[in-house]
């Protein structure tokens, strides 16, 4: 216990010092995430409250059906919680347990490995329990409010929720700890990222499959019957059902202690096994996580390179060389592929639903702008996060970067150009898919405004990063140190896309503006497209000037933060 307290105390002290140093910036960085999570919690809570209220009214005299539906719904919420915790825990477990800076120090002292691991686990568990709490607990709170239950319900549900999250974190930690023992760190991180991506994609697919396959014909009762038959709450061997049973039991004054006890037992078992195995797994695993995945490709790579460069291969310009470097780094980053996988799929389903809803009707200008906006968001999210940190991520190599004889123009353009190919290709594919789904005709002409908007937005986020770089940004975009920059780049990019879509949809609202209400619809379309082109060109050029000037100043005046 003493060993555990020592490690935990140091961790808390470091956390507190960092939090107090980065007070405002830290809060600002957290704000979008807090708003998002809080908003999601409120939305889920309000939605669930109305749903439970509706069910009670609609199923008077059908208590079995009502109970089956409530169990299904609460089990589904618990399953969503498990996915959220799993996706979050897979990243945080590895980062906290294996990548903490003081691991080498603690593991070389006489402190027990189990105590070091337990302290790390405590941090991960606390982080996950708190981070997921608003959206995860809101439906259960809503259920309690809708049923007007006593205070004991909330205590039981809170206990069940904590035990449930600890079980999922414990499972993620056990799998990670076992895997690290046999797989080198870099490979494991890639694997974890792919696993997170697969979890999310599977969930998005499953949810959309259920939504698409539900036949809404025949009124609410048959639909509710079909929903009750989904039987997600009847998989008794899984913990998500146990959590739902805790809520149903406590809410209806039935026995809730059995599923609650099972959850506590499971969490204790998983975490206990992990700590008990720490001397065997953690120490060796940590050493393995420090190992790099080396291959025997070294000589082969050199032989190929020599053969390719023999003769009079032209020297690439600085712009080409830097562009190539940016693309290689982006395409080799697991985070890039993760975002690239999640955003288009999520948006893709929204577009598919949009297509389904509007298949038979003419699409207004506003809806076309919405459609184009969705395509742009889905295609550019990953690139925005990369482009928006492209200079900041050079921080670790700044001493070399500043000594290279590169022109500011080449440095800026390489970062903008590297942010374009992926969103442009995705936007083209997205518009092709939309054209295929919707019978109203081809959406290919929208590729031109899409290209303009993507270029403008990417240029703007690169320029913003060059003007206010944060050289503490690590090369690894997954790191929590980078959350502020990542979130801000994505946020600004998305706001930019939304504003440009407002200009694009000008033909839809021009008749309400007194100054231009006399325009014909054709003239309004030309004006809308012309204004969009002009604004995008202005943003791109302005960003180029500002970004080039900022990089020029950096290259000619050095890094003011660089001390001896």
């Amino acid at each position, binding site marked *: 216990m003493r060993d555990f307290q020592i490690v935990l105390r140091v961790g808390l002290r470091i956390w507190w010092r960092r939090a107090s140093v980065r007070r405002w910036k830290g809060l600002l960085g957290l704000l979008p995430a807090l708003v998002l999570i809080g908003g999601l919690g409120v939305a889920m809570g309000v939605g669930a409250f109305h749903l439970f209220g509706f069910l009670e009214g609609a199923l008077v005299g059908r208590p079995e059906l009502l109970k089956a539906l409530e169990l299904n719904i609460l089990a589904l919420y618990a399953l969503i919680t498990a996915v959220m915790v799993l996706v979050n825990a897979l990243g945080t477990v590895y980062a906290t347990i294996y990548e903490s800076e003081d691991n080498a120090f603690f593991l070389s002292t006489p402190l027990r490995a189990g105590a070091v691991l337990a302290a790390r686990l405590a941090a991960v568990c606390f982080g996950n329990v708190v981070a997921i709490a608003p959206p995860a607990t809101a439906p259960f709170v809503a259920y309690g409010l809708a049923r007007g239950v006593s205070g004991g319900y909330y205590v039981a549900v809170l206990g069940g929720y904590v035990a449930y999250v600890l079980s999922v974190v414990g499972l993620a930690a056990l799998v990670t700890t076992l895997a690290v023992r046999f797989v080198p760190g870099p490979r494991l991180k890639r694997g974890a990222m792919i696993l997170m991506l697969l979890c999310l994609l599977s969930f998005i697919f499953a949810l959309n499959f259920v939504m698409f396959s539900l036949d809404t014909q025949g009124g609410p009762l048959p639909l509710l019957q079909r929903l009750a038959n989904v039987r997600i709450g009847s998989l008794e061997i899984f913990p998500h059902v146990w959590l739902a049973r805790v809520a149903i039991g406590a809410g209806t004054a039935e026995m809730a202690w059995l599923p609650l006890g099972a959850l506590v037992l499971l969490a204790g078992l998983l975490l206990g096994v992990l700590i008990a195995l720490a001397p065997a797994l953690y120490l060796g695993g940590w050493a393995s996580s420090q190992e790099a995945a080396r291959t025997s490709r070294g000589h082969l790579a050199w032989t190929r390179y020599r053969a390719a460069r023999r003769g009079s291969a032209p020297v690439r310009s600085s712009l080409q060389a830097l562009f190539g*470097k940016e693309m290689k780094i982006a395409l080799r980053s697991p985070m890039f592929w993760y975002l690239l996988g999640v955003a288009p799929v999520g948006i893709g389903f929204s577009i598919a639903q949009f297509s389904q809803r509007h298949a038979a009707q003419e699409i207004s200008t506003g809806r076309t702008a919405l459609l184009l906006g969705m395509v742009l968001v889905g295609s550019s999210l990953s690139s925005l996060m990369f482009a928006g940190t492209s200079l900041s991520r050079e921080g670790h190599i700044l001493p070399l970067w500043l000594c290279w*004889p*590169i022109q500011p123009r080449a440095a800026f353009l390489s970062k903008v150009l590297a942010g374009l190919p992926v969103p442009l290709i995705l936007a083209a594919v997205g518009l092709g898919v939309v054209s295929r789904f919707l019978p109203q005709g081809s959406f290919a002409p929208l590729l031109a405004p899409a290209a303009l908007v993507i270029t403008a937005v990417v240029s703007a986020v690169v320029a913003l990063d060059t003007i206010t770089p944060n050289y503490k940004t690590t090369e690894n975009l997954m790191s929590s140190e980078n959350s502020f920059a990542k979130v801000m780049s994505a946020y600004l990019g998305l706001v930019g896309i939304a504003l440009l879509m407002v200009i694009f949809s000008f033909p839809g609202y021009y008749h309400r503006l007194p100054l231009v209400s006399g325009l014909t619809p054709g003239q309004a379309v030309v004006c809308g497209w012309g204004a969009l082109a002009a604004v995008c060109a202005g943003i791109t050029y302005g960003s180029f000037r500002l970004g080039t000037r900022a990089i020029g100043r950096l290259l000619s005046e*050095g890094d*003011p933060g660089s001390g*001896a």
Partner: protein
Amino acid sequence: MIEAVQLTRRYGSLPAVDSLSLQVAPGQLFCFLGPNGAGKTTTIKMLVGLLKPNSGHARVAGLDVWADPVRAKAALGYVPDAVSLYSELTGLEFLDLVADIYRVGASDRVARIGRLAGLFSLTAHLGQPMSSYSRGMRQKATIIAAMLHEPAALFLDEPTVGLDPRSARTLKDLLREACDRGAAVLMSTHILEVAETMADQVGIIHHGKLLFQGSVPELREYQHGPESSSLEDLFLQLTQGDQPAAEKPGPEVAPDA
């Protein structure tokens, strides 16, 4: 030619480097010595265009580093004290990038990368991502990158840290070779044996002031030391105590500083 003229850099009111002037002629190897925090790294950063001086001039190959940065930087190579590289790139991709930036022709780059990687026993690792490199391997990659374009001026900040004895020896040979080619080499080090055996000139900095610039025999003469006194003895005499030597009795400026 490397030239610092009255270089000054302050952090707040604290002068890290104070009116420092030095010259390294083509073909000369200059070892920059001084206690921790004396101002060696700050001086080098000002000379390579990383840190703008509050006053004074830094010239490389006749070009002012701060007035004509791109041309001046094309003429220099730099090995920083703390090495960090692009972990997502392989060693070969990194060196190829550097060769492109310095516009090294295809045949020259193949020949130079092949030779330097071979000398540092790095060829077998060139195809691996640099995230897998040890500290010594990263140091070797940085040294190769700095030498790839055969610069007229070479700056190395503690370059032997992390290198194995064979690689340290290889580095010494390469530095001598660069000097023979006509390059001016400025290297900071704490290993006085390296300075004593290799340097044409040594410069001793303490509290931001250059206390001495000249050869080791000249230093011996300057300090009135016996023929048998080592550079270590002379260095310790010159930098003893916490106060700058300039505030102690004796001449402030070295013979040829």
